Each structure stands twice: as C-alpha cells, then as structure tokens.
C-alpha cells in the first residue's frame, strides 16, 4: 500500500484517465519512499531520542568545564575591551 493511498479516501467512480494519474503518482511516491531509510523520514527524526542518564561525576565534570570555559571567555572579552582603550 502506498503512502498516498493510505491518506486518501476514494469516493465514487473515478474516470479512467484520472485513475491512471493517481496510480502513476502512487508508484512515483512508492519509489521515492524506497530510497530513504525508515529513520530518515521527517516524521521519525522529529521524535526526540531518549534522555541519557549522566552520573554525578560526569555531570560535575561537565559543569566544572562549563564554568571554567565561561570564566576564560570573560577574560578574553575583558582583554578585548581593555585593548580597545
């Protein structure tokens, strides 16, 4: 079953020429779908991945590094303004 036929309800009689167009479109979409992996679809990638559990040691180390980097950045920014004057 194609993606199009799943999402489209067919009602009443369809003229033969229009039906051929619909079938052509369905075949085209099926071929397109074949070239992507399931987890490449926008619908799949828009689902968030599960949150990782970080231990206290890792979290503390990350915070220590973050604070250190912010402090050094502030030093660089201070030096930048100091050099301007």
């Amino acid at each position, binding site marked *: 079953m194609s993606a199009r036929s799943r999402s489209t309800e067919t009602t009443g009689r369809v003229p033969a020429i229009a039906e051929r167009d619909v079938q052509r479109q369905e075949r085209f979409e099926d071929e*397109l779908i074949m070239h992507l992996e399931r987890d490449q679809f926008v619908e799949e990638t828009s689902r968030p991945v599960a949150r990782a559990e970080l231990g206290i040691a890792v979290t503390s180390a990350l915070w220590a590094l973050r604070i*250190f980097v912010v402090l050094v950045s502030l030093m660089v920014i201070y030096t930048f303004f100091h050099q301007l004057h």
Partner: protein
Amino acid sequence: MSATEATGAGVALPPPLTAEDAARSHDRSRVHHARAHSRRWRLLWLLVGPGILAMLGENDGPSMIAYASDGAQYGLGLFVPLIPILFGMAFVCQEMCMRVGAVTHRGYGELVLQRYGRVWGWFGAGDLTLTNLVTLVAEFVAIRVGLAYFHLGSGVAVALGLALVLFTLSGGRYWRWERIVLGLALFNGLFLVAAILVKPDIGTIASAFDFTPFPGGSFNTLLLLLASTIGATVTPWMIFFQQSASADKGMTPVDIRHGRYDTATGAVLASIFGLGALIAGAALLTRGGSAIQGFDGAGFPQALKQVAGGAAGTAFALGLVEAGAVAILTISASTAYAAGECVGVSHSFNSSPRNAAVFYVANIGSALVAAAVILIPGAPLLSIALNANVLATVLLPVSLIFMVMLANDKRLMGPWVNGRSTNTLGIAVIAFVGICGAAYGIDSFLQSVGLIGS
C-alpha cells in the same frame, strides 16, 4: 533498513512523505543508482560535500589573513608543519560529526539537547551564536579587505555577502545549495596560486618541516599564535555544520567510508591552501611584513602587489573575497541548523521558507546582523576580527566533549561507536585545544590587569 522492508509479522507501513522527504529521496535515488551500477567516481561525486565545505569554510577570511600574518612576521618555520597537524586534528573531530550525522540522521544541537538536557543544548547554541556572530563580522571585514584592493568599499562587501546568502537559499534544495557553495569553495585555491606567483624557494619550504622552534617573540605572542591558528582550523560551527549537513544530505551508515574521503579531501585541500596563504605572506618577511595590518585597507594584497606583482596581489585579494563569502554561507547555515534544532522545528534546505521559517530567518538574520555591524562608523572591526578565532578556540572544548560523548553513545550509534584510537586522538585534541585556549585567555587577562608583565 529501507522504509519498505518488512518488520516482524507484516510489512511495515512507511511514514507519510513530506516535501522534505521527497527532495532528499530524489538525491538518495541517484546515490543508490550509482552504487547499484558500481559507478565509483559518480558515487564519490554525489557523496562529497559536507566535509569539504566544513574544512574549506574554515579556511575563511580571518584564518587566511592570520596565516599570511604568521608568514610575514615569523617566516615559514613552526607553521609549515603546524598547519597540516592542526588539519589532522580537525579531521579527527569532523569525522566523528559526519559519522554521528549519518547514523542518527540528526544534527548536533538537537542530539545534545534531547540526549543530555536542554541546559547543555542551549549552552552549545549560545556558544555557537556568539562565536558565529563575531566570526561573520570578521568575514565581512575580510571581503572588504579583498575588495579594497579593487577600490571598492564596505557597501559592496555587504551587498555581495547578502546577495550570495539569498541566492543560495532561493532554490529550496540542499543539493543546489551544496553544489553552489562547493563550486565557490574551490576558488580557495587562489591562495595556492598567490603562493606560486611569489616564487618561493622550495628548499626553504621543505626545511621548515624540521619543526623549527618558535622564531621569536614573547610567551603571550606564542600563545596568541597557537590559539588563533587552532581557531583557524577547528571551531564550534564546523561541528554543528557537518553533522547537520550530513543528515540533511541524507547520508546513511553505508556512506560513512565516502564521508571519510570527503572529510579527508577537505582537510588536505584546506591544509594546502592554508600553506599557500602562509607562503605568500612569508614573501613579505624581509620587506616590512610585520608592519602590515591584515584587516586594514587592502592589507596583504596591496603589499604582495608591490613585492611580487599585480597577479599575486589580485589572486590574494580574490582569494580573500572567496574565503569570506564561502564562510558567510557555511557559518550562517550552521546558525540556522542550530536554531531550528534547538527550537524543535523544521531545519533543512529541502524545506520551503514557509515550512522552515526559523531556519531561513536565522540563516539570513545572522548574516544581516554581521553586515550591519561592519557598516557602523568607528566599530572596532580590527579587534573583532583579530579575536574571532581566539574566542572560538576558548569555547571549543565543551562542544568537542559532547561530540565525543555522542560518538561513544552505543544506544545512538550501535556498531558505529568510536574505536579506542579515535577516542585517544579525540581526547588529545580536546586537551591540546583546551590548554592553548585557556593559557592564552588567562595570560592575556593577567597582563591586562597588570598582575604580570608582557
């Protein structure tokens, strides 16, 4: 596994096809066709892009001026072996980005935010926004320097940069954007042309590979050179860009080998072209090179014209325009990817502006803000440009640590997690970058407040 393969008891229904999926699938169909028919060169052509763009995008205006300035002040020693080593380090980092993007089909920003929490995701995005804005200003300054050689001013630099951003975004396809920027990026080779035109002594270049010690100057100068040279080869935007671009291109684990070729090619080309700028600058070593203000007036192109002729000056000037222009495109793109990923909305060149408004607004907006800064009379553009690479180096270690964590995450990466050697190299790179950046920041600060002498 492809979308239509059977799972479990029955056939798994494919998810609904969006316009973004359809565009990506068109690109993938060509890859599948080339692979099925064993057309190796065609396959390589289709799969190269994000790696070369990240590496040549980082050979940006400030970086090339920094290399030329190194050559003009200190000659070739130390820097000739240092530049290839630093691009080797960049390869280690960028290969991880490509691999994580190809396996997870997600960008760096969204993975950090979802996997490790919003605080870390937004910290990363904040670092990126700050360094990208500063760097984008420096790119416009570099274009202005290149254009000043042709007697054109800041207004033309701004118009050129913004026109390129709008033109490349107009197609609504990743493939189109990538190929246009790739075509422009190859003109980074103009720095090699400039190096050839100054007729360097090959023996002197070869002898520089003997790891000549630092040629002179203070400890702080050495730290500044190291920090700015590292910032010229590995930066936070490259991490965001290559992972997101690999996902946007539609790369899969099957393409990882070609992704490595792409990244390695980018590193080799960037290294050669960076050495070109260094060698061109070194031609000015004994001719007042140390007095040249790289970001002021027509800087190095004008000086090269006087020493090596108009052709060398023109090649260097056009190279600067190219380097700035390509970096504006790639850095704006990394800002746009990060914005879309952190807000949690569509973030792809394959989406229309209506479906990915945040992505397009961030892309154009970041370039607009930087362009506006260089038009402010009296703005400290020289200082901004000089400090852009240093700030990127200081903020880089946190981004790199999360990159290594993602690449080691078995739940995300499965069999494609980092090997032991990649982890060893990755941690060594983080330590080296962290120590150089922090040492310069602390040493400069202590000098500024008068606690130590210069």
